């Protein structure tokens, strides 16, 4: 990938940014939920994918004793906001982390990778919870060139709340959008 000289998480006011991008820095966008409730079937699929045998998530008695009932692993936070790949009536494939894709389009950068990820966990997610999220663009770097190509880094926070307005967590992503031919 790259040697990510990523920007910090403080808002950027780079004059070179398009007005449409600068205007949304620090502004919550795309608040909504993915249209489904947290459920244990997906929890177990996730646990299986990493062979995680933690009894807190598999043993109902342990879950009751420690957490007052079943909960999802904290690291599944982003699972609960990712939309279905297809839904009735949708004309395009739905994509999560829409701000990331907005930036690719705004800068004309066809490729992108995520380089850094920080997650802070709040109250646990329980089956039946409906998690809603909102995305906040924190910063966009000046043009950078890495071994992947020429492009820009950006930092996006995704904040998650449950139906009781309790903060479930915050994910901070650093992405690098780039063009492989080297032109930004």
């Amino acid at each position, binding site marked *: *990938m790259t*040697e*990510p000289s990523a920007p910090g998480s403080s808002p950027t006011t780079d004059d070179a940014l398009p007005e449409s991008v600068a205007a949304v820095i620090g502004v919550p966008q795309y608040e909504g939920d993915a249209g489904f409730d947290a459920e244990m079937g*997906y929890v177990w*699929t*996730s646990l*299986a*994918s*990493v*062979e*995680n045998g*933690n*009894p*807190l998530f598999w043993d109902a*008695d*342990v879950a*009751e*004793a*420690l*957490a*007052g009932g079943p*909960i999802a*692993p*904290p*690291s*599944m936070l*982003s*699972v609960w906001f*990712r939309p279905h*790949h297809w839904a009735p009536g949708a004309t395009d*494939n739905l994509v*999560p982390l829409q701000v990331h894709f907005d930036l690719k389009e705004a800068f004309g950068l066809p*490729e992108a*990778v*995520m*380089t*850094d*990820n*920080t*997650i*802070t*966990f*709040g*109250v*646990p997610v329980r089956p039946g919870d409906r998690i809603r999220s909102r995305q*906040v663009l924190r910063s966009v770097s000046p043009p950078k060139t890495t071994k*992947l190509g020429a492009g820009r880094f950006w930092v996006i*926070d995704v*904040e998650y*709340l449950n139906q009781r307005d*309790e*903060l479930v967590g*915050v994910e901070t*992503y650093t992405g690098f959008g780039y063009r*492989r031919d080297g032109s930004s």
Partner: protein
Amino acid sequence: MSTTAPAPTLTLDRVHVGDVLPELAVDVTATTVVLGALATRDWRPMHHDYKFATERNGTRDIFLNTPNQAAWFERYLTDWTGPHGRLGTVTFRMKDSVFPGDTMVFRGEVTAVATDALGCGWVGVEVMLTVAGEDGADRIMTTGSARIAVPVDADDNPWARGPDTWKPGDWKA
């Protein structure tokens, strides 16, 4: 919480700065990558479509996605702490991608042990994911750090903490 809680696997008094966590080695297959992507509802083609990954992204194969790496790190940490361990924060930086055919190895070392003002016991751990390079030497794929709560004694349970007593970091909301 009506059921009797199991005894903690690890309590704070048994953790010290410099402690090394047991290694975890995992052979990565295409199934590892695809199952991890689908389990995290990540439908992007570079995590399941070889041609897309190699021809569009310029990588040598499909590769592990970010949320699945988070799940691997959680599993690694709670294998060590036991079910009482409760993640507060995880930060990681991916330096390169993990592909089918790699054997990824997770390592960790305790860097901090503390009790916060609310009585919650915290352990800071530096974590690393490596794979063997062509020359046999370890190549660092991902580095990071985690802050995980563990019981301060046999009667403590970090999962019993509600929003008023669970403060793993400064919220941005």
